C-alpha cells in the first residue's frame, strides 16, 4: 500500500471536496453515457438504450454514492461531523455544559495538583548521580523492633571495610549550626562528612575542588547559593574562611545549585574517616549513606550486612546485643515519612473525582432522558447501537477534555499553594513542578472520566426501545421506573463517598483539636524562646560560655516584663536534644533485655519553674551545683517509675552516656513532658545542670516567661545578649509557635482533607439538588393533579424532602460501611481518637443529612408552588 498516496489523496479530497465530487459525478455520468451509446450501437432506440443501461448497471446515483464513500477521509469527515454536532449540542445547553465542565475541572484539577506532588516526591528518581544505587544504613534492634536511622562509628567502619557490595560508605552528622563570617554569624545547615561523601554522591564542584581524605579538618565546601549570598560569586568564595562552632574552615570548593543533601545543607565540613572522640559502639552519632556497587542489588548488600551483624554480635556481646544493620534505599529513607500523608491525599482526591464523575453521569442521564425521543427516532430510522452511543460519548469526551484543560490551569496555582502550605518536613519540596508525565496522567484521567461518566448514559441510550420510548411522555409524568432508580442510586453513591471524606476530615480535625488542647506537661503561653549558639571549641570556651549564659540569665531576669528565665539544651519541640540509655544503682525493676532509655536535657536552675513543669519531689538545680561539686540530676516521673518503682528516687545514683561516666545523684523529680510534639506520649527525661555538662551547654534555648507579649521583648533581649557576648548567634520564636510547628504535618493533613471534604460536600449538594429539581420538574403534572385533588402543600414539600432524606440515609449507611473498612488505613495518623470515633461519624452523618435537605429545599418549595391549572393545561 502506498501510504503517501493514501494520505495525500485523502487530504486533497478533504480540502477540495467540491472538485472531487464533480469528478466522481462526471466519471459515473460518462460511464453511463458510454453504456447507453453501446446499446444504441447495437440498434436500440435512445430511450430503450438508456433503460437497458440502467437495468444492466443499476442506478447512477447509487454508483456515485458508492464511489464517493470510498476512503479513510470519509470516516474522518463523519467523525468530525459528529464532533461538531456534539459541540453544537453542548453550546445549546450551556447550563449542563458549564456545570459539568466546572465539576470535572475541580475534580481533575485537584487530582493533577496532588499527583504533581506525589510524582515529584515519591515517584521521580532522586536528582543525584546513581540515584537508584544510594542506600542509607539504619540500626535495628531485633528484640524491641525499634529502628534508628543512625549508626555508630565503629559499626559503620566495619561495614565500610567488609561489605564488598558497597562501593563507598560515608558517615555524616550535623544540623543547624551557627556559622560565623567576617561581619556576622547566622544559623546555617552544616553537615560534617568524611571525604567518602563525594565518592558516594559523585558531585562535581562548579568552582574549586571537593575535600579529600587529606583535608581532615579545616576544609569546607559550600553551596552555590551560600557562596553567592555571602561572597557575591562562586569564584569569590574560594579560599575564604568561615567559622563553624568557632573552628576556622577554608572554602575549597562550591557545589552547583540543586545539590543540598542532606536536608538543605549549605556548608559541608570535612571530617576524618574515623573520629576517636565519637568512636563507641553504643554512641549513635552518625548517619551513613552508601553507594551500592553496580551489578549488586540492595538484597546482596542486606545479605552482607546480616552476616556482618552476626559477627559483630558475637565479637561484642555487650555493645552489639540484638543489633542488626539495615540498608534502605535513600529515596525511601527520604520520602518514607511523607508517604502516608501523600497517599492519603491522593486517595482523597480520587474520591473527589469519583463524586465529580457521578455528578456528570447524573447530568448526562438527565440530558439523555430529555432526548430519548430523539434517540428513539434515530433508532427507528435505523441507527445502530454504536451510532446512538457515539454522540453521548463524544459529548462526554469534549466536556472531560475541556474540564481537564481547565483543571490543569487550576492545578498550577494549586500546586504552588500546596507547596507553600506544606510543612517544611515535606521532602523534595523544591523539586515539585508540573511536568510532561503529570500532563499525560491528566489526559488519561480526562479520557477515563469521560468513559466512566458516559458509560451508563450511553448504555441506556443503546437500550432505548423506539416503540416504547415514543409512547412515554416525560412531561406527562410517565417516566419509567428504572430511570429514577438509577438516578437515586447515583445520589446514594455520591453521598456515601462524601460521607467517607467527611468522616476522614472529622477524624483528623478531632485529632488536631486533641493535640491543641493537650496538657503538654509545661505551659506554652507567654514564653519567648531564643535559640542561642555561643561559639566554643575547647573546654575553657565551653566553661566560659556557660558562665556567660548564667550571667545573661541574671540580667534578663531583671528586664521589666520578664517573670522567669532559664537555659535548656533539649527544649520540647526544640532543635537540640539527646537521648540514650542510662543505668541506676539501687533497687528497681530491671529488664535484662532492655536498658532503660530516656531523653537527656541539660538545664539551668529555674528551668522547671519558668516552663511550668511541676516539681514533684526534691529540689531544682542551684548555684551550688558546679563542675567541681558532686554531679547531680533531676529525673522526670517516668524515669522514677521505670527505674525505681515506688521507692523514693531522691538520693539514688544514676549514670548516662551523654558526656561523662560519672555517677550523678538524683536530687529532684519533675513531671513528664511530651518531648517532640503534642502527639507524643509524656516520656522519661533525665535533666542535668548546664554547669556540669558544658559541652552540651553552648547551644541552648533561652526561655523567658513574660508578662507581656513575648516578641515585644525581642530588642531588649537582643541588646542584653550582645552586651554579654556579641558573637552569640540568636534566633527568636515563641513556645506557642514551636508547638504549632511541631504539629504542622497534622495540621496540613487536617486542613487539606477538610477542604477536600468541603468540595465533596458542595458536589454532593449539587447532585442532590439536580436530582430533586429534575424529578420535581418531571412530576409537575402529577403534582398539579394531586393539588387539584386537594393535597396539602405541606404534604408535597414533605414528599420531596422525605425522598431526599431517604437517599441521604441510604448514602450515609453505605458510607458507614465504607468508613469502617477504610478507617483502619488512617489509624497511624490519629491521636487520641479511635478510627471509629462516634462523634466524627455522627457529625458527618448529620452534616450530610442537612446538606441533602438543604439542597432539596428549593425544588421542594417550587413543588408547593405548582399551579394545578397551569400544570394540567401545559403541553
Amino acid at each position, binding site marked *: *500500500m*502506498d501510504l503517501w*498516496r*493514501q494520505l495525500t*489523496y485523502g487530504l486533497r479530497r478533504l480540502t477540495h471536496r467540491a472538485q472531487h465530487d464533480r*469528478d*466522481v459525478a*462526471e*466519471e*459515473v455520468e*460518462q*460511464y*453511463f*453515457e*458510454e*453504456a447507453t*451509446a*453501446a446499446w444504441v450501437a447495437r440498434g436500440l432506440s435512445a430511450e430503450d438504450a438508456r433503460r*437497458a443501461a440502467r*437495468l*444492466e*448497471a*443499476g442506478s*447512477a446515483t*447509487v*454508483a456515485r*454514492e*458508492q*464511489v464517493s464513500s*470510498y*476512503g479513510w477521509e470519509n470516516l474522518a469527515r463523519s467523525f468530525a461531523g459528529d464532533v461538531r454536532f456534539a459541540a453544537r449540542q453542548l453550546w445549546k445547553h450551556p447550563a449542563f455544559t458549564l456545570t459539568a465542565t466546572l465539576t470535572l475541572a475541580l475534580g481533575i484539577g485537584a487530582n493533577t495538583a496532588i499527583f504533581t506532588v506525589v510524582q515529584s516526591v515519591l515517584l521521580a528518581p532522586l536528582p543525584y548521580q546513581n540515584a537508584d544505587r544510594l542506600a542509607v544504613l539504619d540500626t535495628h534492634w531485633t528484640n524491641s523492633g525499634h529502628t534508628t536511622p543512625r549508626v555508630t562509628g565503629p559499626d559503620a567502619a566495619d561495614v565500610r571495610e567488609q561489605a564488598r557490595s558497597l562501593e563507598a560508605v560515608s558517615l555524616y552528622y550535623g544540623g543547624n549550626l551557627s556559622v560565623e563570617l567576617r561581619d556576622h554569624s547566622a544559623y546555617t545547615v552544616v553537615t560534617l562528612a568524611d571525604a567518602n561523601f563525594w565518592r558516594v554522591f559523585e558531585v562535581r564542584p562548579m568552582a574549586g575542588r571537593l575535600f579529600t581524605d587529606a583535608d581532615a579538618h579545616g576544609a569546607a565546601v559550600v553551596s552555590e547559593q551560600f557562596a553567592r549570598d555571602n561572597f557575591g560569586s562562586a569564584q569569590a568564595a574560594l579560599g575564604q574562611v568561615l567559622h563553624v562552632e568557632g573552628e576556622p574552615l577554608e572554602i575549597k570548593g562550591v557545589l552547583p545549585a540543586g545539590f543540598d543533601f542532606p536536608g538543605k545543607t549549605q556548608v559541608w565540613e570535612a571530617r576524618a574517616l574515623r573520629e576517636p572522640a565519637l568512636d563507641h559502639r553504643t554512641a549513635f552519632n552518625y548517619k551513613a549513606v552508601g553507594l551500592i556497587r553496580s551489578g549488586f542489588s540492595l538484597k546482596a548488600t542486606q545479605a552482607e550486612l546480616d552476616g556482618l551483624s552476626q559477627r559483630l554480635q558475637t565479637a561484642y556481646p555487650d555493645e552489639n546485643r540484638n543489633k542488626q544493620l539495615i540498608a534502605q534505599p535513600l529515596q525511601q529513607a527520604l520520602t518514607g515519612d511523607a508517604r502516608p500523608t501523600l497517599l492519603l491525599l491522593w486517595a482523597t482526591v480520587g474520591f473527589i473525582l469519583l463524586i465529580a464523575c457521578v455528578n456528570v453521569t447524573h447530568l448526562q442521564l438527565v440530558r439523555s432522558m430529555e432526548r430519548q425521543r430523539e434517540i428513539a427516532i434515530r433508532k427507528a430510522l435505523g441507527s445502530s447501537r454504536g451510532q446512538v452511543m457515539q454522540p453521548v460519548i463524544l459529548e462526554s469526551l469534549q466536556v472531560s477534555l475541556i474540564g481537564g484543560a481547565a483543571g490543569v490551569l487550576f492545578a498550577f496555582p494549586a500546586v504552588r499553594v500546596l507547596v507553600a502550605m506544606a510543612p517544611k518536613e515535606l521532602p523534595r519540596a523544591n523539586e515539585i513542578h508540573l511536568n510532561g508525565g503529570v500532563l499525560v496522567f491528566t489526559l488519561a484521567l480526562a479520557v477515563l472520566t469521560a468513559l466512566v461518566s458516559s458509560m451508563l448514559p450511553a448504555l441506556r441510550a443503546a437500550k432505548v426501545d423506539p416503540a416504547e420510548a415514543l409512547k412515554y411522555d416525560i412531561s406527562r409524568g410517565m417516566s419509567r421506573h428504572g430511570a429514577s432508580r438509577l438516578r437515586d442510586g447515583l445520589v446514594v453513591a455520591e453521598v456515601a463517598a462524601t460521607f467517607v471524606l467527611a468522616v476522614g476530615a472529622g477524624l483528623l480535625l478531632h485529632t488536631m483539636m486533641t493535640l491543641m488542647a493537650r496538657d503538654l506537661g509545661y505551659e506554652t503561653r507567654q514564653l519567648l524562646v531564643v535559640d542561642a549558639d555561643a561559639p566554643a571549641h575547647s573546654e575553657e570556651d565551653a566553661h566560659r560560655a556557660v558562665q556567660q549564659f548564667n550571667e545573661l540569665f541574671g540580667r534578663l531576669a531583671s528586664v521589666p516584663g520578664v517573670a522567669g528565665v532559664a537555659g535548656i539544651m533539649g527544649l520540647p519541640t526544640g532543635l537540640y536534644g539527646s537521648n540514650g540509655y542510662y543505668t541506676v544503682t539501687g533497687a528497681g525493676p530491671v529488664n535484662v533485655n532492655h536498658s532503660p532509655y530516656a531523653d537527656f536535657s541539660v538545664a539551668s536552675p529555674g528551668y522547671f519553674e519558668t516552663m511550668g513543669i511541676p516539681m514533684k519531689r526534691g529540689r531544682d538545680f542551684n548555684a551550688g551545683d558546679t563542675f567541681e561539686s558532686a554531679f547531680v540530676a533531676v529525673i522526670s516521673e517516668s524515669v522514677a517509675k521505670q527505674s525505681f518503682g515506688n521507692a523514693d528516687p531522691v538520693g539514688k545514683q544514676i549514670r548516662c552516656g551523654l558526656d561523662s561516666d560519672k555517677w550523678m545523684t538524683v536530687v529532684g523529680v519533675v513531671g513528664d513532658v511530651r518531648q517532640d510534639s503534642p502527639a507524643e506520649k509524656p516520656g522519661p527525661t533525665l535533666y542535668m545542670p548546664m554547669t556540669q555538662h558544658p559541652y552540651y551547654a553552648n547551644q541552648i534555648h533561652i526561655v523567658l516567661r513574660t508578662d507581656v507579649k513575648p516578641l515585644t521583648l525581642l530588642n531588649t533581649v537582643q541588646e542584653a545578649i550582645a552586651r554579654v557576648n556579641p558573637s552569640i548567634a540568636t534566633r527568636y520564636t515563641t513556645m506557642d509557635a514551636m508547638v504549632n510547628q511541631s504539629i504542622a504535618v497534622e495540621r496540613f493533613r487536617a486542613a487539606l482533607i477538610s477542604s477536600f471534604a468541603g468540595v465533596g460536600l458542595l458536589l454532593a449538594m449539587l447532585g442532590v439538588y439536580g436530582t430533586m429539581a429534575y424529578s420535581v420538574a418531571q412530576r409537575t403534572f402529577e403534582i398539579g393533579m394531586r393539588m387539584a385533588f386537594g393535597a396539602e402543600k405541606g404534604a408535597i414539600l414533605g414528599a420531596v424532602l422525605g425522598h431526599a432524606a431517604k437517599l441521604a440515609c441510604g448514602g450515609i449507611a453505605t458510607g458507614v460501611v465504607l468508613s469502617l473498612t477504610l478507617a483502619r488505613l488512617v489509624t497511624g495518623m490519629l491521636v487520641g481518637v479511635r478510627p471509629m470515633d462516634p462523634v466524627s461519624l455522627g457529625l458527618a452523618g448529620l452534616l450530610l443529612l442537612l446538606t441533602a435537605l438543604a439542597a432539596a429545599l428549593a425544588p421542594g418549595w417550587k413543588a408547593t408552588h405548582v399551579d394545578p391549572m397551569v400544570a394540567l393545561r401545559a403541553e
Partner: protein
Amino acid sequence: MLTFFSMSDENTDVIQGTLDMLILKTLSLEPMHGFGIARRVEQVSRGVFKMNPGSLLTALQRLERAGWLDAEWRQTENSRRAKFYKLTRSGKKQLESETADWTRRAAAIARLLKAEG
C-alpha cells in the same frame, strides 16, 4: 429484452478477489476509462463476467491510491472528457504476482476436481 433477462439468470459476478487482477490485466494492454474496462472484461470473458460501475470505479480509486494505477482526464475518440487509467510500474509487478498466484491456485483446483472425477 428477453435475452437480457435470460443472461442475468446466470451468475455474472466477478470471482471474489480477482477484480483487481482483471482490471490490472485489462489495463496492461492500453490505458482505458471505466466503461472501456467493463466492456473489455465482458467481451473477452464472453459475457461470463459483468462489472457493476459502483464496484469498478471504487476499485479503480483503490488501485490508484495503492500506486498501481495513474489516472488522467483525456478526450475519448468521440471527444467526451473521460478519466483514463494507466498501469504503473508497481502495478505491473502487482499484476505479475497476482497472475502467478492465481495460476498456481487455479491449477490446484483443476487437479482436485479432476482427481475427484
